[in-house]
Protein backbone atom coordinates (compact mmCIF):
# COMPACT_ATOMS: atom_id res chain seq x y z
CA UNK A 1 0.00 0.00 0.00
CA UNK A 2 1.17 3.50 -0.83
CA UNK A 3 0.43 7.02 0.22
CA UNK A 4 0.37 9.04 -3.01
CA UNK A 5 0.78 12.80 -3.33
CA UNK A 6 0.71 15.11 -6.33
CA UNK A 7 0.81 18.91 -6.24
CA UNK A 8 1.92 19.56 -9.81
CA UNK A 9 -1.48 21.12 -10.60
CA UNK A 10 -3.89 21.30 -7.65
CA UNK A 11 -3.40 19.17 -4.56
CA UNK A 12 -4.25 15.47 -4.67
CA UNK A 13 -3.58 12.85 -2.00
CA UNK A 14 -4.57 9.19 -2.00
CA UNK A 15 -3.99 5.86 -0.32
CA UNK A 16 -3.81 3.03 -2.86
CA UNK A 17 -3.40 -0.71 -2.81
CA UNK A 18 -2.30 -2.75 -5.81
CA UNK A 19 -5.15 -5.18 -5.40
CA UNK A 20 -7.71 -3.02 -3.65
CA UNK A 21 -7.27 0.01 -5.92
CA UNK A 22 -7.76 3.55 -4.70
CA UNK A 23 -8.82 3.26 -1.05
CA UNK A 24 -9.16 6.99 -0.42
CA UNK A 25 -8.53 10.14 -2.40
CA UNK A 26 -8.89 13.86 -1.76
CA UNK A 27 -8.34 16.48 -4.43
CA UNK A 28 -8.46 20.27 -4.44
CA UNK A 29 -8.23 21.99 -7.81
CA UNK A 30 -7.29 25.41 -6.41
CA UNK A 31 -3.65 25.96 -7.39
CA UNK A 32 -2.98 28.33 -4.50
CA UNK A 33 -3.85 26.21 -1.48
CA UNK A 34 -1.25 23.43 -1.52
CA UNK A 35 0.32 24.30 1.82
CA UNK A 36 -3.06 24.70 3.51
CA UNK A 37 -4.69 21.44 2.40
CA UNK A 38 -1.78 19.00 2.21
CA UNK A 39 -1.94 18.03 5.89
CA UNK A 40 -5.69 17.64 6.19
CA UNK A 41 -5.74 15.58 2.99
CA UNK A 42 -3.05 13.19 4.23
CA UNK A 43 -4.88 12.81 7.55
CA UNK A 44 -8.22 12.30 5.79
CA UNK A 45 -6.85 9.69 3.37
CA UNK A 46 -5.32 7.71 6.23
CA UNK A 47 -8.50 7.79 8.27
CA UNK A 48 -10.89 7.21 5.32
CA UNK A 49 -8.88 4.19 4.19
CA UNK A 50 -8.33 2.91 7.71
CA UNK A 51 -4.71 2.28 6.76
CA UNK A 52 -2.10 2.80 9.46
CA UNK A 53 1.19 4.52 8.64
CA UNK A 54 3.05 1.30 9.48
CA UNK A 55 1.06 -0.58 6.81
CA UNK A 56 2.32 1.68 4.00
CA UNK A 57 5.20 0.38 1.95
CA UNK A 58 6.19 3.74 0.44
CA UNK A 59 5.18 7.25 -0.56
CA UNK A 60 4.57 7.88 -4.27
CA UNK A 61 4.96 11.47 -5.35
CA UNK A 62 4.52 13.42 -8.56
CA UNK A 63 7.81 15.12 -9.41
CA UNK A 64 6.14 17.39 -11.95
CA UNK A 65 6.42 19.04 -14.31
CA UNK A 66 4.40 21.75 -12.58
CA UNK A 67 4.52 25.31 -11.28
CA UNK A 68 7.32 25.35 -8.72
CA UNK A 69 5.80 26.73 -5.56
CA UNK A 70 2.98 24.23 -5.42
CA UNK A 71 4.99 21.33 -6.81
CA UNK A 72 7.51 21.67 -3.98
CA UNK A 73 4.87 21.40 -1.27
CA UNK A 74 3.97 17.88 -2.36
CA UNK A 75 7.55 16.74 -2.81
CA UNK A 76 8.57 18.20 0.56
CA UNK A 77 5.59 16.52 2.21
CA UNK A 78 6.30 13.18 0.53
CA UNK A 79 9.96 13.22 1.48
CA UNK A 80 9.22 14.22 5.08
CA UNK A 81 6.41 11.67 5.45
CA UNK A 82 8.60 8.92 4.02
CA UNK A 83 11.42 9.93 6.35
CA UNK A 84 9.12 9.89 9.37
CA UNK A 85 7.61 6.56 8.38
CA UNK A 86 11.00 5.09 7.45
CA UNK A 87 9.70 4.16 4.02
CA UNK A 88 11.07 4.89 0.54
CA UNK A 89 9.94 7.74 -1.69
CA UNK A 90 8.63 6.52 -5.03
CA UNK A 91 9.13 9.36 -7.56
CA UNK A 92 6.76 9.40 -10.53
CA UNK A 93 6.45 11.81 -13.45
CA UNK A 94 3.09 13.54 -12.99
CA UNK A 95 2.19 13.46 -16.70
CA UNK A 96 2.66 9.68 -16.67
CA UNK A 97 -0.16 9.45 -14.13
CA UNK A 98 -2.46 11.35 -16.50
CA UNK A 99 -1.57 9.00 -19.37
CA UNK A 100 -1.87 5.95 -17.14
CA UNK A 101 -5.33 6.96 -15.95
CA UNK A 102 -6.54 7.43 -19.53
CA UNK A 103 -4.96 4.11 -20.55
CA UNK A 104 -5.20 4.93 -24.23
CA UNK A 105 -3.53 2.59 -26.73
CA UNK A 106 -3.49 5.48 -29.22
CA UNK A 107 -0.70 8.07 -29.31
CA UNK A 108 -1.31 10.78 -26.71
CA UNK A 109 0.01 14.27 -26.03
CA UNK A 110 -0.48 15.40 -22.41
CA UNK A 111 -0.42 19.18 -21.96
CA UNK A 112 -0.59 21.09 -18.67
CA UNK A 113 -0.39 24.76 -17.75
CA UNK A 114 3.09 26.09 -16.98
CA UNK A 115 1.90 29.71 -16.44
CA UNK A 116 3.64 32.66 -18.11
CA UNK A 117 2.09 31.64 -21.43
CA UNK A 118 3.90 28.36 -21.61
CA UNK A 119 2.82 24.72 -21.34
CA UNK A 120 4.37 21.51 -20.11
CA UNK A 121 3.97 18.54 -22.45
CA UNK A 122 4.73 14.81 -22.67
CA UNK A 123 4.15 12.57 -25.69
CA UNK A 124 3.16 8.89 -25.41
CA UNK A 125 3.10 6.33 -28.21
CA UNK A 126 0.57 4.14 -26.38
CA UNK A 127 0.59 1.66 -23.51
CA UNK A 128 2.46 -1.57 -22.98
CA UNK A 129 1.12 -5.03 -22.14
CA UNK A 130 0.59 -4.19 -18.46
CA UNK A 131 -1.03 -0.84 -19.18
CA UNK A 132 1.99 1.34 -18.51
CA UNK A 133 2.20 4.47 -20.69
CA UNK A 134 5.07 4.52 -23.18
CA UNK A 135 6.55 8.01 -23.04
CA UNK A 136 8.10 8.79 -26.42
CA UNK A 137 9.21 12.36 -25.68
CA UNK A 138 9.11 14.88 -22.86
CA UNK A 139 8.33 16.13 -20.39
CA UNK A 140 9.14 19.45 -21.98
CA UNK A 141 8.27 23.12 -21.75
CA UNK A 142 7.24 25.29 -24.66
CA UNK A 143 4.98 28.07 -25.88
CA UNK A 144 1.61 26.75 -27.07
CA UNK A 145 2.17 28.00 -30.61
CA UNK A 146 5.48 26.15 -30.76
CA UNK A 147 4.07 22.84 -29.56
CA UNK A 148 3.67 21.44 -33.08
CA UNK A 149 7.28 22.24 -33.91
CA UNK A 150 8.52 20.90 -30.59
CA UNK A 151 6.71 17.57 -30.91
CA UNK A 152 7.15 16.77 -34.62
CA UNK A 153 4.81 13.78 -34.71
CA UNK A 154 2.00 15.77 -33.10
CA UNK A 155 -0.43 15.17 -36.01
CA UNK A 156 -0.94 11.57 -35.08
CA UNK A 157 -1.49 12.27 -31.39
CA UNK A 158 -4.62 12.88 -29.43
CA UNK A 159 -4.07 15.99 -27.35
CA UNK A 160 -5.21 15.96 -23.72
CA UNK A 161 -5.18 19.24 -21.82
CA UNK A 162 -5.24 18.32 -18.14
CA UNK A 163 -6.01 20.67 -15.25
CA UNK A 164 -5.50 18.10 -12.51
CA UNK A 165 -3.47 15.04 -11.67
CA UNK A 166 -5.08 12.27 -9.65
CA UNK A 167 -2.95 11.00 -6.78
CA UNK A 168 -5.01 7.81 -6.96
CA UNK A 169 -3.89 7.24 -10.55
CA UNK A 170 -0.35 8.25 -9.65
CA UNK A 171 -0.30 5.79 -6.76
CA UNK A 172 -1.70 2.96 -8.90
CA UNK A 173 0.88 3.75 -11.56
CA UNK A 174 3.60 3.46 -8.89
CA UNK A 175 2.17 0.15 -7.70
CA UNK A 176 2.17 -1.16 -11.29
CA UNK A 177 5.72 0.02 -11.89
CA UNK A 178 6.89 -1.65 -8.71
CA UNK A 179 5.02 -4.90 -9.37
CA UNK A 180 6.48 -5.14 -12.86
CA UNK A 181 9.96 -4.14 -11.70
CA UNK A 182 10.09 -1.06 -13.84
CA UNK A 183 12.26 1.88 -12.88
CA UNK A 184 10.76 4.84 -11.05
CA UNK A 185 11.47 8.43 -12.05
CA UNK A 186 14.54 10.26 -10.81
CA UNK A 187 14.03 11.79 -7.35
CA UNK A 188 14.34 15.32 -8.66
CA UNK A 189 11.75 18.06 -9.04
CA UNK A 190 10.96 18.61 -12.74
CA UNK A 191 11.06 22.41 -12.83
CA UNK A 192 12.13 22.56 -16.51
CA UNK A 193 12.86 26.23 -16.00
CA UNK A 194 15.79 27.89 -14.33
CA UNK A 195 15.05 30.11 -11.33
CA UNK A 196 13.70 33.48 -12.29
CA UNK A 197 16.76 35.60 -11.98
CA UNK A 198 18.17 38.47 -13.93
CA UNK A 199 21.79 39.13 -13.11
CA UNK A 200 22.27 42.80 -12.41
CA UNK A 201 25.00 44.62 -14.26
CA UNK A 202 26.28 46.36 -11.15
CA UNK A 203 24.99 49.33 -9.16
CA UNK A 204 23.07 52.01 -11.03
CA UNK A 205 23.85 55.67 -10.55
CA UNK A 206 21.53 57.57 -8.23
CA UNK A 207 22.70 61.08 -9.13
Amino acid sequence: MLLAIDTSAGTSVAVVDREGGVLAEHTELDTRRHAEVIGTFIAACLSDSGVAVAELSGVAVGMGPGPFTGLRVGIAAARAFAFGAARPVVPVISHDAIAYELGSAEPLLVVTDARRREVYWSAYSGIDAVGLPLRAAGPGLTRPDELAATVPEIDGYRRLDAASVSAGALGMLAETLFYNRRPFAVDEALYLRSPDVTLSSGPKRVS
Partner: protein
Amino acid sequence: MSAREPLVLGIETSCDETGIGIVRGTTLLANVIASSMDEHARYGGVVPEVAARAHLEALVPALKQALAESGVALDELDAIAVTSGPGLSGALMVGVGAAKALALSLGKPIYAVNHLVGHVGADVLDSVGSGPSRPAIEYPTVALLVSGGHTSLLLVRDLISDVELLGETIDDAAGEAFDKVARLLGLPYPGGPEIDRAAAGGDPTAIRFPRGLSNPKDVEAHRYDFSFSGLKTAVARWVEKAQDAGEAVPIADVAASFREAVADVLLTKAVAACIDHGIPRLLLGGGVVANARLRELAAERCAANGIELRIPPLDLCTDNGAMIAALGAQLVAAGRAPSDFDFGADSTLPVTSIQA
Protein backbone atom coordinates in the same frame (compact mmCIF):
# COMPACT_ATOMS: atom_id res chain seq x y z
CA MET B 1 7.81 23.20 34.24
CA SER B 2 6.54 19.65 34.13
CA ALA B 3 8.62 16.74 35.38
CA ARG B 4 9.57 15.89 31.84
CA GLU B 5 10.15 18.83 29.58
CA PRO B 6 8.73 18.68 26.05
CA LEU B 7 11.00 17.32 23.34
CA VAL B 8 10.34 19.35 20.19
CA LEU B 9 11.77 19.41 16.68
CA GLY B 10 11.62 22.78 14.91
CA ILE B 11 11.66 23.47 11.18
CA GLU B 12 12.58 26.89 9.81
CA THR B 13 12.57 27.81 6.10
CA SER B 14 11.47 31.45 6.01
CA CYS B 15 14.46 32.81 4.10
CA ASP B 16 17.71 31.26 2.87
CA GLU B 17 18.59 29.01 5.82
CA THR B 18 17.10 25.55 6.18
CA GLY B 19 17.10 25.16 9.96
CA ILE B 20 16.32 22.01 11.92
CA GLY B 21 16.58 22.27 15.68
CA ILE B 22 15.80 19.90 18.51
CA VAL B 23 15.25 21.08 22.08
CA ARG B 24 14.09 19.57 25.33
CA GLY B 25 12.34 22.40 27.13
CA THR B 26 15.03 25.07 27.36
CA THR B 27 17.91 22.74 26.56
CA LEU B 28 19.38 22.86 23.08
CA LEU B 29 20.09 19.40 21.68
CA ALA B 30 20.76 20.13 18.00
CA ASN B 31 20.85 23.16 15.75
CA VAL B 32 21.55 22.25 12.12
CA ILE B 33 21.61 25.07 9.59
CA ALA B 34 22.02 24.51 5.84
CA SER B 35 22.43 27.85 4.10
CA SER B 36 21.95 28.58 0.41
CA MET B 37 23.85 31.87 0.85
CA ASP B 38 26.59 30.88 -1.60
CA GLU B 39 24.02 30.31 -4.34
CA HIS B 40 22.73 33.85 -3.88
CA ALA B 41 26.17 35.47 -3.91
CA ARG B 42 26.29 35.96 -7.68
CA TYR B 43 22.93 37.74 -7.58
CA GLY B 44 23.90 40.09 -4.73
CA GLY B 45 20.86 39.18 -2.66
CA VAL B 46 18.49 36.38 -1.71
CA VAL B 47 16.61 35.05 -4.75
CA PRO B 48 13.35 33.53 -3.42
CA GLU B 49 13.11 30.74 -6.01
CA VAL B 50 16.75 29.76 -5.48
CA ALA B 51 16.16 29.67 -1.72
CA ALA B 52 13.00 27.57 -2.04
CA ARG B 53 14.70 25.02 -4.30
CA ALA B 54 17.57 24.74 -1.85
CA HIS B 55 15.17 24.14 1.07
CA LEU B 56 13.60 21.19 -0.73
CA GLU B 57 16.98 19.52 -1.18
CA ALA B 58 18.40 20.39 2.25
CA LEU B 59 15.43 19.39 4.36
CA VAL B 60 15.76 15.65 4.84
CA PRO B 61 19.58 15.68 5.12
CA ALA B 62 19.28 18.39 7.81
CA LEU B 63 16.62 16.35 9.64
CA LYS B 64 18.91 13.31 9.64
CA GLN B 65 21.84 15.34 10.88
CA ALA B 66 19.85 16.96 13.70
CA LEU B 67 18.58 13.59 14.91
CA ALA B 68 22.07 12.11 14.75
CA GLU B 69 23.61 15.04 16.63
CA SER B 70 20.97 15.04 19.35
CA GLY B 71 20.77 11.27 19.69
CA VAL B 72 16.99 11.67 19.64
CA ALA B 73 14.76 9.12 17.88
CA LEU B 74 11.77 10.47 15.95
CA ASP B 75 9.22 8.56 18.01
CA GLU B 76 10.48 10.19 21.21
CA LEU B 77 9.42 13.64 20.02
CA ASP B 78 6.47 15.30 21.74
CA ALA B 79 5.74 17.73 18.91
CA ILE B 80 6.87 19.30 15.65
CA ALA B 81 7.11 23.10 15.42
CA VAL B 82 7.37 25.01 12.17
CA THR B 83 7.67 28.61 11.02
CA SER B 84 4.45 29.58 9.25
CA GLY B 85 5.49 33.22 8.72
CA PRO B 86 6.54 35.91 8.19
CA GLY B 87 9.05 35.28 5.41
CA LEU B 88 9.33 34.36 1.73
CA SER B 89 6.15 32.54 0.88
CA GLY B 90 7.56 29.90 -1.48
CA ALA B 91 10.32 29.15 1.02
CA LEU B 92 7.92 28.96 3.96
CA MET B 93 5.69 26.50 2.08
CA VAL B 94 8.47 23.93 1.84
CA GLY B 95 8.81 23.87 5.62
CA VAL B 96 5.07 23.92 6.21
CA GLY B 97 4.43 21.02 3.81
CA ALA B 98 7.28 18.98 5.26
CA ALA B 99 6.39 19.68 8.89
CA LYS B 100 2.77 18.68 8.46
CA ALA B 101 3.68 15.44 6.70
CA LEU B 102 6.38 14.60 9.23
CA ALA B 103 3.98 15.21 12.13
CA LEU B 104 1.32 13.02 10.50
CA SER B 105 3.74 10.22 9.72
CA LEU B 106 4.70 10.16 13.39
CA GLY B 107 1.25 10.83 14.80
CA LYS B 108 2.59 13.90 16.63
CA PRO B 109 0.96 17.31 17.18
CA ILE B 110 2.15 20.34 15.22
CA TYR B 111 2.73 23.91 16.38
CA ALA B 112 2.83 26.59 13.67
CA VAL B 113 4.77 29.53 15.06
CA ASN B 114 5.83 33.07 14.27
CA HIS B 115 9.38 33.49 12.98
CA LEU B 116 9.98 36.85 14.69
CA VAL B 117 8.75 35.63 18.05
CA GLY B 118 10.99 32.62 17.46
CA HIS B 119 13.99 34.97 17.44
CA VAL B 120 12.95 36.08 20.92
CA GLY B 121 12.38 32.46 21.95
CA ALA B 122 16.00 31.65 21.11
CA ASP B 123 17.07 33.35 24.30
CA VAL B 124 15.44 30.74 26.55
CA LEU B 125 17.90 28.12 25.32
CA ASP B 126 20.97 27.16 27.26
CA SER B 127 23.82 26.33 24.94
CA VAL B 128 25.14 22.82 24.89
CA GLY B 129 28.30 22.56 26.96
CA SER B 130 28.56 26.30 27.47
CA GLY B 131 29.23 26.05 31.19
CA PRO B 132 26.85 27.45 33.77
CA SER B 133 23.54 28.32 32.17
CA ARG B 134 22.40 31.91 32.13
CA PRO B 135 19.48 33.08 34.22
CA ALA B 136 16.20 32.83 32.36
CA ILE B 137 15.12 35.76 30.25
CA GLU B 138 12.81 38.15 32.11
CA TYR B 139 9.69 39.75 30.69
CA PRO B 140 8.72 42.29 29.70
CA THR B 141 11.60 42.97 27.37
CA VAL B 142 12.16 45.04 24.26
CA ALA B 143 13.55 43.01 21.34
CA LEU B 144 15.42 44.40 18.34
CA LEU B 145 15.45 41.88 15.47
CA VAL B 146 17.71 42.78 12.56
CA SER B 147 18.45 40.66 9.51
CA GLY B 148 18.44 40.72 5.73
CA GLY B 149 14.71 40.03 5.80
CA HIS B 150 13.43 42.07 8.72
CA THR B 151 14.15 45.00 11.01
CA SER B 152 11.64 44.99 13.84
CA LEU B 153 11.33 46.40 17.30
CA LEU B 154 9.08 44.34 19.57
CA LEU B 155 7.69 44.76 23.04
CA VAL B 156 7.47 41.28 24.52
CA ARG B 157 5.37 41.19 27.68
CA ASP B 158 5.13 37.42 27.53
CA LEU B 159 6.77 35.11 25.00
CA ILE B 160 3.74 32.97 24.27
CA SER B 161 0.84 35.32 24.89
CA ASP B 162 1.69 38.99 24.54
CA VAL B 163 3.96 40.39 21.85
CA GLU B 164 3.48 43.84 20.34
CA LEU B 165 5.13 45.32 17.25
CA LEU B 166 6.49 48.75 18.21
CA GLY B 167 8.03 49.49 14.84
CA GLU B 168 9.68 48.05 11.76
CA THR B 169 11.42 49.13 8.60
CA ILE B 170 9.24 50.97 6.13
CA ASP B 171 11.52 50.06 3.20
CA ASP B 172 14.75 47.99 3.19
CA ALA B 173 15.77 45.67 6.00
CA ALA B 174 19.04 46.68 7.66
CA GLY B 175 20.78 43.56 6.32
CA GLU B 176 19.68 44.49 2.79
CA ALA B 177 21.22 47.94 3.24
CA PHE B 178 24.52 46.28 4.15
CA ASP B 179 24.33 44.14 0.99
CA LYS B 180 23.52 47.09 -1.26
CA VAL B 181 26.19 49.38 0.15
CA ALA B 182 28.75 46.58 -0.06
CA ARG B 183 27.91 46.22 -3.73
CA LEU B 184 28.39 49.86 -4.51
CA LEU B 185 31.75 49.73 -2.74
CA GLY B 186 32.65 46.76 -4.94
CA LEU B 187 32.54 44.31 -2.02
CA PRO B 188 31.04 40.81 -2.35
CA TYR B 189 27.82 39.37 -0.88
CA PRO B 190 26.84 39.01 1.91
CA GLY B 191 27.62 42.61 2.73
CA GLY B 192 27.53 42.52 6.54
CA PRO B 193 30.86 40.83 7.22
CA GLU B 194 32.46 42.60 4.24
CA ILE B 195 31.46 46.06 5.51
CA ASP B 196 32.67 45.04 8.98
CA ARG B 197 36.04 44.07 7.55
CA ALA B 198 36.32 47.14 5.33
CA ALA B 199 35.34 49.43 8.23
CA ALA B 200 38.23 48.28 10.40
CA GLY B 201 40.60 51.20 10.61
CA GLY B 202 38.04 53.56 9.07
CA ASP B 203 36.77 56.70 10.79
CA PRO B 204 33.09 56.33 11.72
CA THR B 205 32.79 60.11 12.04
CA ALA B 206 34.40 60.86 8.67
CA ILE B 207 31.07 61.25 6.88
CA ARG B 208 27.79 62.13 8.55
CA PHE B 209 25.32 59.89 6.74
CA PRO B 210 21.61 60.41 7.46
CA ARG B 211 19.79 58.55 10.22
CA GLY B 212 16.44 57.52 8.72
CA LEU B 213 13.20 58.68 10.38
CA SER B 214 15.15 60.50 13.07
CA ASN B 215 14.23 64.17 12.61
CA PRO B 216 11.52 65.50 14.97
CA LYS B 217 8.76 65.44 12.36
CA ASP B 218 9.47 61.83 11.32
CA VAL B 219 9.90 60.71 14.92
CA GLU B 220 6.39 61.94 15.64
CA ALA B 221 4.89 59.61 13.02
CA HIS B 222 7.51 56.85 13.10
CA ARG B 223 9.00 56.84 16.59
CA TYR B 224 10.07 53.20 16.41
CA ASP B 225 10.11 52.66 12.65
CA PHE B 226 13.24 52.41 10.53
CA SER B 227 14.16 53.44 6.99
CA PHE B 228 17.39 52.52 5.25
CA SER B 229 16.73 53.29 1.61
CA GLY B 230 17.62 56.98 2.03
CA LEU B 231 20.85 56.04 3.75
CA LYS B 232 21.77 53.69 0.93
CA THR B 233 21.09 56.44 -1.62
CA ALA B 234 23.15 58.94 0.40
CA VAL B 235 26.11 56.57 0.41
CA ALA B 236 25.72 56.03 -3.35
CA ARG B 237 25.64 59.81 -3.95
CA TRP B 238 28.69 60.37 -1.82
CA VAL B 239 30.63 57.66 -3.63
CA GLU B 240 29.56 58.94 -7.07
CA LYS B 241 30.58 62.48 -6.18
CA ALA B 242 34.03 61.31 -5.17
CA GLN B 243 34.37 59.22 -8.32
CA ASP B 244 33.17 62.10 -10.54
CA ALA B 245 35.80 64.33 -8.97
CA GLY B 246 38.39 61.72 -9.84
CA GLU B 247 39.14 61.03 -6.18
CA ALA B 248 39.88 57.61 -4.72
CA VAL B 249 36.92 56.47 -2.61
CA PRO B 250 38.05 56.08 1.02
CA ILE B 251 36.36 52.71 1.43
CA ALA B 252 37.28 52.25 5.08
CA ASP B 253 35.80 55.64 6.05
CA VAL B 254 32.66 55.15 3.96
CA ALA B 255 32.09 51.65 5.37
CA ALA B 256 32.74 52.77 8.96
CA SER B 257 30.51 55.83 8.61
CA PHE B 258 27.71 53.84 6.99
CA ARG B 259 27.91 51.12 9.62
CA GLU B 260 27.86 53.77 12.35
CA ALA B 261 24.73 55.32 10.88
CA VAL B 262 22.93 51.95 10.86
CA ALA B 263 24.02 50.94 14.36
CA ASP B 264 23.27 54.41 15.72
CA VAL B 265 19.72 54.58 14.43
CA LEU B 266 18.95 50.99 15.48
CA LEU B 267 20.19 51.51 19.03
CA THR B 268 18.80 55.02 19.42
CA LYS B 269 15.31 53.75 18.69
CA ALA B 270 15.70 50.53 20.68
CA VAL B 271 16.97 52.38 23.74
CA ALA B 272 14.20 54.97 23.38
CA ALA B 273 11.67 52.12 23.39
CA CYS B 274 13.17 50.73 26.61
CA ILE B 275 13.10 54.14 28.29
CA ASP B 276 9.62 55.10 27.04
CA HIS B 277 8.15 51.85 28.32
CA GLY B 278 10.19 51.75 31.51
CA ILE B 279 11.65 48.38 30.53
CA PRO B 280 15.36 48.02 31.40
CA ARG B 281 15.92 45.01 29.16
CA LEU B 282 16.90 44.73 25.49
CA LEU B 283 17.25 41.53 23.52
CA LEU B 284 19.01 41.42 20.15
CA GLY B 285 18.28 38.86 17.44
CA GLY B 286 18.73 38.29 13.70
CA GLY B 287 21.76 37.81 11.50
CA VAL B 288 22.92 41.44 11.61
CA VAL B 289 23.77 40.87 15.30
CA ALA B 290 26.93 39.31 13.86
CA ASN B 291 28.02 42.89 13.17
CA ALA B 292 30.74 43.76 15.67
CA ARG B 293 29.97 47.48 15.83
CA LEU B 294 26.27 46.87 16.45
CA ARG B 295 27.06 44.66 19.44
CA GLU B 296 29.66 47.11 20.75
CA LEU B 297 27.35 50.10 20.48
CA ALA B 298 24.50 48.12 22.03
CA ALA B 299 26.71 47.32 25.02
CA GLU B 300 27.73 50.99 25.39
CA ARG B 301 24.25 52.44 25.08
CA CYS B 302 22.65 49.84 27.32
CA ALA B 303 25.30 50.32 30.02
CA ALA B 304 24.84 54.09 29.86
CA ASN B 305 21.10 53.74 30.33
CA GLY B 306 20.99 51.00 32.93
CA ILE B 307 19.55 48.50 30.44
CA GLU B 308 20.34 44.80 30.67
CA LEU B 309 21.47 43.59 27.24
CA ARG B 310 20.87 40.04 26.10
CA ILE B 311 22.43 38.60 22.97
CA PRO B 312 21.93 34.87 22.31
CA PRO B 313 24.90 32.98 20.83
CA LEU B 314 25.34 33.89 17.18
CA ASP B 315 24.12 30.61 15.73
CA LEU B 316 20.88 31.16 17.62
CA CYS B 317 20.63 34.77 16.35
CA THR B 318 20.71 33.91 12.66
CA ASP B 319 17.66 32.09 11.34
CA ASN B 320 17.57 28.59 12.82
CA GLY B 321 15.25 25.74 13.70
CA ALA B 322 16.23 25.60 17.37
CA MET B 323 14.51 28.91 18.12
CA ILE B 324 11.35 27.58 16.46
CA ALA B 325 11.59 24.40 18.50
CA ALA B 326 12.20 26.47 21.65
CA LEU B 327 9.09 28.56 21.08
CA GLY B 328 7.15 25.39 20.29
CA ALA B 329 8.38 23.80 23.52
CA GLN B 330 7.19 26.84 25.49
CA LEU B 331 3.74 26.48 23.93
CA VAL B 332 3.65 22.75 24.71
CA ALA B 333 4.84 23.31 28.28
CA ALA B 334 2.12 25.91 28.79
CA GLY B 335 -0.48 23.37 27.73
CA ARG B 336 -1.44 25.14 24.51
CA ALA B 337 -3.49 23.14 22.03
CA PRO B 338 -1.61 22.24 18.85
CA SER B 339 -2.32 24.07 15.59
CA ASP B 340 -4.97 22.71 13.24
CA PHE B 341 -3.44 21.10 10.18
CA ASP B 342 -5.02 23.62 7.81
CA PHE B 343 -2.69 26.57 8.48
CA GLY B 344 -0.81 27.98 5.51
CA ALA B 345 2.36 29.93 4.92
CA ASP B 346 1.71 33.58 5.76
CA SER B 347 4.43 35.86 4.41
CA THR B 348 3.12 38.78 6.48
CA LEU B 349 2.10 36.98 9.68
CA PRO B 350 1.86 39.69 12.37
CA VAL B 351 3.84 39.28 15.61
CA THR B 352 0.58 39.24 17.55
CA SER B 353 0.00 35.80 15.98
CA ILE B 354 2.55 33.94 18.07
CA GLN B 355 0.97 30.61 17.16
CA ALA B 356 -0.91 30.15 13.89
